[in-house]
Structures are given as structure tokens and as C-alpha cells.
């Protein structure tokens, strides 16, 4: 429709040009975030230099289907590039399957969770997704599933090796280096729902703990509350990003449908220049669809998966707090047992039964050493958990920033291509006569 159409948005208070100027001003003044602060001691922690320099790079690539039918499985190439002396070579690769990763988690968990480490959770099992792949459905959804899993496995390994103690673990080294791994069994318990149940039970137990442990207990209590709150909020955030992914995909299909419709319109248009412009417009919309498709990919793999990972990681953090609880409980029980043994000795002294006295004294000695062992354990766990929390928080902040930066890059690429597409179309529109 012609006439009166020069209706561009009137200048709002947040005029785009003014904003651009403000942005450049902000660039100079904004310089105070980043360095992590230990809120407990108020001291500024230096960025751990060794953690920053990546002397170890891991990639998970080349998914390959091995075998046929229901016994088939996907095999992934795990490549490592490193300058660390503890490895035999500087670059090497092995092939691993999903259950190998679960097996690694089981081994790590068995050894390190008792110490209060935050163990990165493995990617979730998916019966539906895997069945499609086994059955041999060669469609885009099973390709997407494989890619999703590959990326998740990669992130999992990267988190494991980013942990200073886990990196030293021989099982981790073996996983990366050894050509053939014995097949991991009993990984059922570690599948998604199973793991989640375990984690949830852990937090229930923690909630029932009402006995105060020591002064720093306040820190742990409020930290745990923070973790639980954050987990809920990240779930909400994840749901919002999920919605974005779905709507972006809808936009894709609506754009394609629109493109076809415009092409049809162009084909019946009698004015030849307009007809040509309309078919060009249809092509532009086709390109738009591809760009939207790429953006949806970024929305999912950069944002959605990050958030899903952190929801599960926060669950693992709760597990870590639960471990400390368990150690505390063990100490409590040992102290109460020691107390009972002492009472028993006292009774024996009164009853004057010297033959049983030696046994009682032996018992007391045994439990005294246990108590002091458990006290040391508890102190160590407490110290580890606190250190782990600080490390985790720093890593989380870094992780999020990295991903937002990547997301911005993906947007930049998309917008750049958008500009080029429409700039190419403009002369076509102007050529209509």
C-alpha cells in the first residue's frame, strides 16, 4: 500500500545512536569485575596460574557406529594434546564408548567423593536416543542426538581434567592413554534418573541435619542454601532457553513456508521486475532460514547445554556437602561409642572385674585413635569442600563468561551474514519498475 508509510519508530528515550555512544564510554570505565573474592576470608585470591594455562587439551570427535542392531554402540575418538610430563606422549588418541565414560565416573567417584571433591557428573543415558541410533535411523534427529552426546562427553572430560586432583588420578590417565579399556559394568546405577535420585536423597539427608558442628558451620549452611536456590533459578533459566530454541526452530519452518509462498506469488506476478524481485525475496528468506537454523544450534549447544550441565553440577555440589555430613556423622558416632566404652570401663572398675578391664582399655584405645582419625578426616573434608566451592565458583564464572562470549560470536556471525543477504537484495527491490 502506498502513501503515508514513512512511519519509522519515533525516537524513544533509548535512542539507538545515543546508546552506541554510551557503549563506547562504558568500555573505558568498566574494569572491576573478574578476580574472585573469597567471601569467607575477604581476601583476594589470585587466579591460579597453573589452572589458566591449558597444558592439556581434550577433544572428543569422530563418532562411529560399531556393529548392528540392538548390540550396536557408538565409538568416539578421544584426543589429547599435552605438555604435562606425566603422559607418555605429547599427542595421542584412543577410542572410547559411552559406558567407558560412565565407568570412569564410577571410579573417580568411589575414590574422591569421600574426600569432599565435587565430581563432575557424566552425560545422561538416553534409551530413546540411543535406540534410534542402533536401529539405524539416519535422520536429522539422530544426528542431532549423536552430536549432543559427543559435545557432552567432551565437556565432561574437560571438566574432569580441569580439576587438579582428578587430573593426577591414574584412572583418568589410563582413560586418556590406554588403548584398550576393560569393559565397564554396573553402570546402570549411574544413569540419569539413578544419579539424580542419589543426589536428591543426599540433599534430604543434609536437610535433616540440625546439629551444629562448629563455627564455620554457618558458612556451610548458607552456602548450601545458596546452591539449592541457584539450582532452582538455573532450572528456570534453562527452561527459558529451551523455549528460545523451540521458537527459533519454529521460526525456521515458518520462514521456509513463507519463502515458498512468496515464490508462488512471484510466479503469478505479471510485472516482470516485481516478479523477479519476489523470487529473489524468496531466496533471501531461504537464506534466512539457514541462518536461523545455525542460530538455533548455537542457542542449544552454547546456552541450553551449559545451563543443563550446571543444574547437574550443582547437584554434584550438594553431594559433596552430603559427604562432609557423612564424615561428621561418623565422627559423632565414634565419639559416642568412645563415650560408651569409657562408661563400660568405669563400670568394670566399680564392679572390680580385672580380667575384663584389659579388654575395655584396649577398646578405649582403639576408639580413641578412631576418633582422632575421624577428627582429622573431618577437618580435611571441611577444608577440601571449602576449597572446592571456591574453585567451583571461579570456574563457573569463567565458564559462563566463555559461553556468553561464544554466543555473542555466533550472533555476530549471523548478523553479519544477515546484513550481506539484505544488502544483496536491496538493488533487486530498487530495480522494480
Amino acid at each position, binding site marked *: 500500500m502506498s502513501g503515508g508509510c514513512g512511519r519509522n519508530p519515533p525516537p524513544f528515550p533509548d535512542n539507538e545512536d545515543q546508546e552506541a555512544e554510551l557503549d563506547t564510554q562504558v*568500555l573505558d570505565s568498566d574494569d572491576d569485575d573478574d578476580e574472585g573474592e573469597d567471601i569467607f576470608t575477604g581476601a583476594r585470591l589470585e*587466579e591460579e596460574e597453573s589452572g589458566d594455562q591449558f597444558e592439556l587439551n581434550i577433544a572428543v570427535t569422530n563418532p562411529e557406529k560399531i556393529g548392528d542392531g540392538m548390540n550396536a554402540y557408538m565409538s568416539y575418538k578421544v584426543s589429547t594434546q599435552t605438555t604435562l610430563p606425566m603422559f607418555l606422549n605429547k599427542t595421542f588418541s584412543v577410542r572410547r564408548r559411552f559406558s567407558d565414560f560412565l565407568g570412569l565416573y564410577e571410579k573417580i567417584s568411589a575414590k574422591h567423593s569421600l574426600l569432599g571433591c565435587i565430581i563432575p557428573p557424566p552425560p545422561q543415558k538416553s534409551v530413546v536416543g540411543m535406540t534410534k541410533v542402533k536401529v539405524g535411523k539416519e535422520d536429522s534427529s539422530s544426528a542431532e542426538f549423536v552430536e549432543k552426546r559427543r559435545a557432552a562427553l567432551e565437556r565432561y572430560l574437560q571438566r574432569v581434567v580441569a580439576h587438579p586432583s582428578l587430573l593426577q588420578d591414574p584412572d583418568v590417565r589410563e582413560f586418556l592413554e590406554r588403548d584398550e579399556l576393560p569393559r565397564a559394568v554396573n553402570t546402570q546405577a549411574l544413569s540419569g534418573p539413578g544419579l539424580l535420585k542419589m543426589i536428591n536423597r543426599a540433599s534430604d539427608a543434609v536437610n535433616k541435619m540440625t546439629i551444629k558442628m562448629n563455627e564455620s558451620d554457618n558458612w556451610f549452611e548458607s552456602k548450601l542454601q545458596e546452591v539449592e536456590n541457584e539450582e532452582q533459578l538455573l532450572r528456570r533459566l534453562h527452561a527459558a532457553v529451551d523455549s528460545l530454541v523451540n521458537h527459533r526452530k519454529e521460526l525456521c519452518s515458518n520462514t521456509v513456508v513463507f519463502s515458498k509462498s512468496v515464490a508462488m506469488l512471484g510466479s503469478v506476478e505479471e510485472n516482470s521486475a516485481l516478479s523477479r524481485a519476489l523470487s529473489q525475496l524468496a531466496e533471501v528468506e531461504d537464506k534466512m532460514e539457514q541462518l536461523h537454523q545455525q542460530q538455533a544450534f548455537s542457542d542449544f549447544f552454547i546456552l541450553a547445554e551449559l545451563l543443563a550441565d550446571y543444574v547437574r553440577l550443582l547437584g554434584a555440589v550438594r553431594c559433596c556437602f552430603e559427604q562432609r555430613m557423612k564424615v561428621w556423622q561418623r565422627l559423632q558416632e565414634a565419639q559416642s561409642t568412645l563415650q560408651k566404652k569409657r562408661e563400660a570401663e568405669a563400670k568394670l572398675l566399680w564392679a572390680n572385674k580385672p580380667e575384663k578391664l584389659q579388654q575395655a582399655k584396649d577398646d578405649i584405645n582403639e576408639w580413641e585413635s578412631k576418633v582422632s582419625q575421624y577428627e582429622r578426616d573431618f577437618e580435611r573434608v571441611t577444608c577440601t569442600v571449602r576449597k572446592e566451592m571456591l574453585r567451583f565458583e571461579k570456574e563457573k564464572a569463567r565458564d559462563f*563468561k566463555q559461553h556468553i562470549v561464544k554466543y555473542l560470536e555466533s550472533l555476530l556471525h549471523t548478523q553479519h551474514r544477515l546484513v550481506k543477504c539484505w544488502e544483496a537484495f536491496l538493488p533487486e527491490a530498487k530495480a522494480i519498475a
Partner: protein
Amino acid sequence: VQFGAFQHSCSNKIYLLLVRSVSVDLNNDASLVIDIPDALCERDKVKFTVHTKTTLSSFQKPEFSVPRQHEEFIWLHDTIVETEEYAGLIIPPAPPKPDFEGPREKMHKLGEGESSMTKEEYAKMKQELEAEYLAVFKKTVQVHEVFLQRFSSHPIFRKDRNFQIFLEYDQDLSVRRKNAKEMFGGFFKNMVKSADEVLISGVKEVDEFFEQEKTFLLDYSSKIKDATAKAEKMTRSHKNVADDYNHISGALNSTAADNNTAFKKHLEKYAEVFEKLRKLEDRVASDQELKLTELLRYYTRDIQAAKDLLYRRARALADNENSNKALDKARLKGKDIAQAEENQKQCLQKFDKLSESGKKELTSFKARRVVAFRKNLIEMTELEIKHAKVRRLKCCVYHYMFTRQCSGSHGKPGNLREF
């Protein structure tokens, strides 16, 4: 010249919007220039200010304004449609009723939730509401304005007495509500219309020009209707994406509010990023709607008006054939010959007049359509480029802000060299 001002008073729910338009094409002739410089939204009613500037002596003053409601525009349309004299012209399609349902719902929510929201949330929602109202306003003002400009730019319509009354009469036109007879009449008219569709396809066409036009219009009509529907779905998806950015920004802010570490400030910044993305996506969606979807919607209606012209001509052709047959019969019977001759003469005259005027109208319709598509496609493309560039710049700025503080290997400004 463009400016916008906005005033909102929640208590008595009055919206005032001033948007001065840039007059183009249809306002080429300085002897009669019409525009709608502002509109007032009061509860359910929209009052458009119709502003006229003219050098024609048929008007009392050279410049004047009157307030008009949507119903009065419809009155004008129906009056013109019912004027027998204009049967050979394409009647400009009636503007659709202003639809403020969306913004109104939001305003209701805003009013209800005012006490439970934080100051920031309230301010943000108010801003979104204003943007939505603005979008609907632009659409409805545009379509009402173009409707009038079609009349003013047409050599015959511009002289219409009812049109002049519409522009000039400074009292309420007191458009009566349609009484039962008129409503039934409308229903009957629609029935006749669908009968016409059968007629128009079935009638034996004598004129090559109209034969081609018929084929073209029927085909084009279905294709543009389809394109309109698909464009609407596409625009809706864009709006959904903008909504999602909004929720993401909100969720990030909630997470930030609950956080006590250095991460808090990061989250607030990320929330800011998504808020900006939302605003830009919103603009893309509403500009696409205004330039593309509205264009397609308008021409779907205009094509229908062109088809209506063909129906009227087809009916006149059928009448003409019938009058010929009646004359032959009368001559055979030797009765009422004079009457039959007179009838035949009139039918032929009417048919010839419709054909002549119809041919002119349909030819100028083609030209008008091409001009409108050209203009809107250019404007849409320029806006798309502008928005994409702004988005690109914003992403660049944030990217720079976030990467230059990262220690180690994370910041990769090298990727951006091409920008």
C-alpha cells in the same frame, strides 16, 4: 519530519500519540492533501484526527481537522460502495477495526500486578506495553490514512459529496447503528457475492483484456492470501523469540538478585545483553509486520475490491445478454417492444461504461500495486539492514567488554577482525 511523544495515565486510561507522517505517493497532488497526524485512544474507542489541506474551492477552508472514529470510516466506505455511479471503479477496501486486545490485556496485568512488582519490573513492563501500543497504533493509523488518500488521489472519488462531508463536517456524523434491514441487506449482499463468483467464472468473456484480468486476479488472489497467512506466522515466531529473550533476561536478573558473589555482576551484565537482544528482535518483528505483512494484507483486500469490480461488470454483461434475449422475444411476440428496446439500450450503456472505466481502473491498479511493493520492499530491506547492523555492533561491544578482562586464552578478539 518525524517526532513521537507519549503520555500515559493509568488511572483514567487515556493514551495520546502524536506521530507525524511523511507524505508520499498518494499525496502527490497538492490540491488535496490528507493525513492523520495523531490519534487518541480512550478505553475502547480510537479517535483519529483527520487533517486536510486543500486549494479546492469546493471546501470551506484551506486547512482543517476533524476527529473521526473507525465506524465513520466504515460509513464512508459503505456509502461509496452503495453508490451506483461508482460501479465501474475499484472501491478502496475498508480499513480493519483497530485491535488493541494484546496491549489492553497487558495493561490490565500491569494495573493488577503493580503492587507486587519491583520498581524496575514495573518500569520495564510499562516500556514494553508502550512499545506494543505504538506498534498497533502505527498499523491502524497507516491503514486508515491510506484509505482516505486513495479517495483524495482519485479524480472521481475526490469530488464525492460524502467524502467531502467526511473530511469537513466538524460534528459527529452520528452514524446510525445498522438496523435489522440493513444487516439483512448486508447478508444478502454477501450471498449475492458468492453467487457472483460462480458467475464470473462461468460467463463468456468477449473482451481479451478482461479475460486475462479475470484469470490473473483469481490466481493472484489465492496466492496473496496464502502469502499473508504465512507472513503472519513468521512474524509471530519473531515475536516469540523476542519474548523468550525477555524471560531469559528476567531469569538472569532473578539469579543475580539471589547471588552474593562476584558472579552477581556478571549475571546482571548478561541480563542486560539479553534485554538489548529482546528490544532489537522486537523492532525487527514489528518493522517486518508493518512493511511486509501489512503490505500483503492490504493487497489481499485490494485484490478483493478489484474482483468485486469484475463481478459487477460480469453481472452487467449477464444483464446485457438477458436484455438482448428479452428484446428478441418481445419482437417475436410483437408486444412491449419499446420498453424492451429501452431496457436493452440502458443495459448496454451500463455495460460499456463499466467496461471502459473498469479497464482504466484495473490498469492503474497494476501500476499502484507495483509502486507499493517496490516502496515497501525497499523500506523493509533498509530496516532489516539497519537492525542487523545495530545488533552486530551491540554484540561486538559486549564481546569486547567481556573478553578484554579475561586472563589467559579465553578472549579471542582475533575472530572479530573481519568486522
